[in-house]
């Protein structure tokens, strides 16, 4: 319960930050733009014509739900990667702010366990990421659904993948912050994890290109534990566009990502419990 109270406080703090106000406004403006500028003519369930800002978009006549699949796939990729980059930049300061002198002493004097403070911060950031991703996806589903009559919840479900992926990245950022209180270092750690996640996606192909040696062993070791974010993004895109997925592989991917985040959080909590302030 205490962790939820900490998470709620973080959300209140985020509501006052320009980053998140700007994101909310930008997303809303984009959705409003689509709502007012995009014209889709659906005849008997088929997308006959599309206009954006009055200009016709050339495509063959096809079933509306089929025509929207690539749109949802691309939107899912934008939410996934855009969300990761935005999250790394905008959330880098939450950990250092929690540990700032004059604030952490006060928090630690309250009847709050140290791990609850970290868990609450993590939950708050995760809720923020989830809210942003779901708002963008649900908004797009609503706009396109209202215009075509095609209603699907999969793009919203795929947005959860983006939040899970960001959770694993943010756990690393938080762990670094517990050692060194620096927003820049936290953001650098997040960016590094995103890049490593991309490299881990193509791990086998990259290992084939590398010669034997300590560098290869190091790369193999690191990319074995870092979640392959590209695969997760592809899975989110496939889900959003109602493409078939292997359920076992998806579950393993999600479980691995969650386990990675949990392990980093456990390390952060271990260190936080022993730190002096």
């Amino acid at each position, binding site marked *: 319960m*205490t962790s939820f*109270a*900490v998470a709620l*406080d973080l959300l*209140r*703090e985020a509501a*006052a*930050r320009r980053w998140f106000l700007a994101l909310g406004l930008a997303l809303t403006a984009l959705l409003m733009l689509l709502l007012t500028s995009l014209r889709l003519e659906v005849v008997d369930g088929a997308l006959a014509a599309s206009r954006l800002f009055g200009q016709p978009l050339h495509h063959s006549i096809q079933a509306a739900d089929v025509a929207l699949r690539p749109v949802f796939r691309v939107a899912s990729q934008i939410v996934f990667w855009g969300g990761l980059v935005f999250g790394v930049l905008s959330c880098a300061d939450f950990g250092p702010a929690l540990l*700032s*002198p*004059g*604030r*952490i*002493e*006060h*928090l*630690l*004097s*309250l*009847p*709050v*366990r140290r791990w609850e403070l970290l868990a609450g911060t993590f939950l708050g950031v995760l809720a923020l990421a989830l809210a942003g991703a779901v708002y963008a996806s649900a908004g797009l589903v609503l706009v396109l659904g209202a215009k075509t009559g095609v209603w699907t919840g999969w793009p919203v479900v795929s947005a959860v993948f983006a939040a899970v992926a960001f959770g694993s990245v943010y756990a690393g950022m938080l762990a670094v912050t517990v050692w060194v209180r620096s927003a820049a270092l936290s953001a650098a750690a997040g960016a590094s994890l995103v890049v490593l996640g991309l490299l881990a996606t193509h791990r086998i192909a990259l290992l084939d290109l590398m010669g034997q040696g300590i560098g290869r062993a190091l790369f193999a070791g690191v990319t074995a534990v870092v979640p392959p974010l590209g695969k997760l993004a592809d899975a989110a895109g496939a889900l959003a566009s109602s493409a078939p997925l292997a359920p076992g592989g998806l579950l393993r991917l999600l479980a691995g990502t969650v386990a990675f985040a949990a392990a980093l959080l456990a390390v952060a909590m271990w260190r936080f419990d*022993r730190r*002096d*302030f």
Partner: protein
Amino acid sequence: MSAAFAVTSLHKRFRTRFGRTESLALDGVDLEMPRGEAFGLIGPNGAGKTTFIKCLLGISHPDSGTVELLGGRPEDPRSRARVGYLPERLTLPGAWTPRAFLASVTRLKHLRPERPVVDELLQRVGLSDAADRKIRGFSKGMRQRLGLAAALVGAPDLLVLDEPTDGVDPLGRVEIRQLLAAELARGASLFINSHLLSETERICSRIGILCRGRLVRSGPLAALTAVQQRWRARFAAGSAPPADALLALGFQPADGSVWEIAAADAPALNRALDGARATGALLVELERASRDLEDVLTEALAAGTA
């Protein structure tokens, strides 16, 4: 009833990032604070006062020694739930209102943030008029008052205040003193760390002096400031005997009709007073000579650094 807190042989070293020893902050501090009293910890900068508070509240981990806080361990949230703490430099969320901040502290203390209770706290620290203003526009004194209100959430048994009147105007200091007196009357214990000796002297009944991580003096204020074997006598105006007579009896002029006399024991004191009365002087007041806290601190620091 157990003590508000008791620390035994508390040691704390600060090390550099690579484990090299940097400084000794606390060097075997033993201190027990009775419940219901006001204790003031004084000492120069870097003496270890804030480190002592942090170890007391579990914010820092001592290298060795024991800490008992309200009968429990500081790491136990149940012990800390009964403590109100005002850090030296409290960082407040600038975008929040005082009401929202106090509601958050109340929730983290596992209490219900009821608006009348929050409003009463704001009224007690004189921030009722600023209840809906953003904290970022607050002056240092207002922030200090809000920090004090946060420390008072849940009517704690022990208040630990690090420089409570720092940045507060003189009138505000009087209000804070009154507020702390009311907390004492309620039965709370007060532990104050302050550079302002006159404030400490006015609020606290017990004093501890920390120097280079060691507690060099500790005890009731009256005992620490009393000058052993020295008395102040005031004679009725117009009845004072010639100065030569009093000087001959061992009296030293202090202030107007007040004279000081050194006496090893009660018979010696009475012999001197009898001698003065024999010359026609009328004694109207007699008290033990005392020093102010600054003298005590100076002497203690000189002894502690010797």
